[in-house]
């Protein structure tokens, strides 16, 4: 659709109607009003720059720090060398270069993608459900992924095979399908009430589906106690990778989700006034909600499949952005992606260096920072309800 034949506000009105804007359409720039206090909400360049800087700095830190400590400048030069036609002297040995490009780079890129997806989906869910407590797992994605992963691990264990070696993709695919099935189930049940369904109906359906699937997972776990350790390590989240496989699995979903959700920033601002008002403004709240839930859930399911259940990123990042940079979803969504990517990369760095050579599950790190932050959010939203 093009914007050119944009009709004036008075179009279709009886001749007597001049509209509140008579004359404005003819001379949009002839406004003699003194400069306004501020323009419409939009993403300010300094915030965009801050987000990009955060991503670059945390990525470089993630590549430079670890059991082998490297010079960030050398790492940066080595990264630029990956681009065709660039030949810089990084000062790194061949072994160090391999550590950067083959071991750490896939993990850092995965962390960036997972963090961006979880934070973006969380921000999107908060808008779609007009609920500050919404996170990407609200509609049962976590419980579904957990059950799917548990089933896959338990079946493998039962067959007597070596769990990690046999089929490296079974658990991610089972988690992915589990997450999507759970969200579909929630949406189907929540929407069964017909056109009276509200965000609250869907959230409650999500609670029910989560309980149901978690019960199934717990039962399965009790019957297969030998798998508990592996299942728990999956549930607490990890970004361990072998090469680029996980990144390539997540990438198409991440791109599609980011494109669709970012395009709907203004639409989410419209939905913030309530379904009935939004309908009066000419949009279809339930249609928009369904589309956004589908794409955000796809992104979440793909992230969960490769990283396990990483808590709190989807809540704390969008709220931080909202508090600092503005509440419009045209600001919250892109900045959530950038800062979510940076935050998770930082958490992963802490997870693998704090007690090296052992690793702390990354879900523990994010929740450790997340829980205190959550108190702060609650105190702030009491003043300005979202």
């Amino acid at each position, binding site marked *: 659709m093009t914007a050119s034949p944009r009709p004036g506000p008075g179009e279709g009105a009886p001749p007597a109607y001049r509209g509140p804007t008579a004359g404005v359409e003819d001379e949009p720039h002839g406004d003699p009003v003194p400069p306004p206090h501020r323009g419409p909400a939009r993403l300010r360049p300094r915030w965009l720059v801050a987000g990009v800087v955060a991503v670059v700095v945390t990525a470089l830190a993630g590549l430079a720090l670890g059991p082998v400590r490297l010079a960030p400048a050398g790492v940066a030069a080595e990264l630029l060398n990956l681009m065709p036609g660039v030949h810089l002297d990084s000062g790194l040995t061949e072994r160090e270069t391999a550590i950067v490009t083959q071991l750490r780079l896939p993990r850092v890129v995965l962390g960036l993608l997972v963090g961006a997806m979880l934070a973006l989906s969380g921000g999107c869910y908060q808008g779609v459900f007009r609920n500050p407590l919404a996170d990407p797992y609200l509609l049962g994605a976590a419980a579904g992924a957990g059950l799917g992963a548990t089933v896959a691990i338990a079946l493998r264990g039962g067959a007597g095979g070596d769990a990690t070696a046999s089929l490296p993709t079974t658990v991610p695919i089972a988690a992915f399908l589990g997450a999507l099935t759970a969200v579909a189930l929630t949406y189907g049940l929540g929407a069964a009430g017909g056109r009276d369904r509200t965000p609250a109906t869907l959230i409650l359906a999500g609670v029910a589906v989560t309980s149901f699937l978690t019960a199934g997972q717990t039962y399965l776990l009790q019957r297969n106690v030998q798998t508990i350790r592996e299942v728990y390590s999956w549930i607490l989240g990890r970004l361990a990778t072998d090469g680029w496989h996980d990144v390539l699995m997540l990438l198409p979903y991440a791109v599609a989700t980011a494109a669709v959700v970012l395009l709907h920033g203004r639409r989410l601002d419209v939905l913030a006034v309530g379904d009935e008002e939004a309908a009066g403004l*000419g949009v279809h709240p339930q249609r928009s909600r369904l589309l956004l839930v589908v794409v955000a859930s796809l992104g979440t399911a793909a992230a969960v499949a490769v990283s396990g259940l990483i808590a709190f990123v989807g809540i704390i990042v969008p709220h931080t952005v909202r508090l600092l940079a503005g509440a419009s979803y045209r600001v919250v969504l892109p900045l959530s992606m950038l800062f979510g990517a940076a935050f998770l990369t930082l958490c992963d760095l802490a997870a693998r260096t704090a007690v090296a050579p052992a690793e702390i599950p990354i879900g523990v790190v994010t929740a450790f920072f997340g829980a205190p932050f959550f108190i702060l959010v609650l105190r702030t939203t009491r003043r300005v309800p979202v």
Partner: protein
Amino acid sequence: MTAALSIVDLHVALGGAPVLRGVDLEVAAGEWVTVIGPNGAGKSTLVRAVGGVLPHTGSIAILGTPAARLRRRERARLVAAVMQSPVIPGGMAVLDYVLLGRTPYIPPLGRESATDVAVVREVLDRLQLTRFAGRELATLSGGERQRVFLARALAQGAPLLLLDEPTSALDIGHQQDVLELVDGLRRSDGLTVLATMHDLSLAGEYADRLVLLAEGRVAATGPPRQVLTEELLARYYRARVRVVDGGQGPLVVPVRPVGPA
């Protein structure tokens, strides 16, 4: 001349219970019609059905076009509504809130043009809201908020304005301010107004015509003097009132029944 709004045999059921049972109503262009009636009579339901947010049977025509044939965006350019106690989105500034009124003119995934911003600045100026443009909506008083809701509806540039209890949350001075403002806009812009109100004296002072709704049907319609009578109000509201003649219309005064001494 085509009626701004033409409703024929409108039925609405909410949760299976019939709320409107065959309402006919015609509102001429430029007219102000206020719907009155006891609690549960279906006033808000009628306005919401015209706003296009309730399933109904029977026909609603807006400026001669059957509403069923209008796409939602087209309808939003013809009908703007200020509903009862709208949601106040947290963290949203007045300017951004009023800009949402331009949604029917903005491509589905597009953004506001300079024209949209200019329209909104003009509306803010007319409603003396310019100094609030950067303030968060949540920090405004009730009277200021009601003006902002009205500004959002005006930014829609629709010739038919729906007001559901526009004054119920306001003190008596702000009630008069808002209604005078609406009446001024109606006269200057040729707006058609369909409102619901509980305060019968105010309703009578500002409307060209009143529609008394009772149990989902039109019980009486006509100029305020014909509808605001002691007899009709006693029958449909079960209220003891005295109706005295005011300068701008009948004034309805509640009278306490004489009880045991």
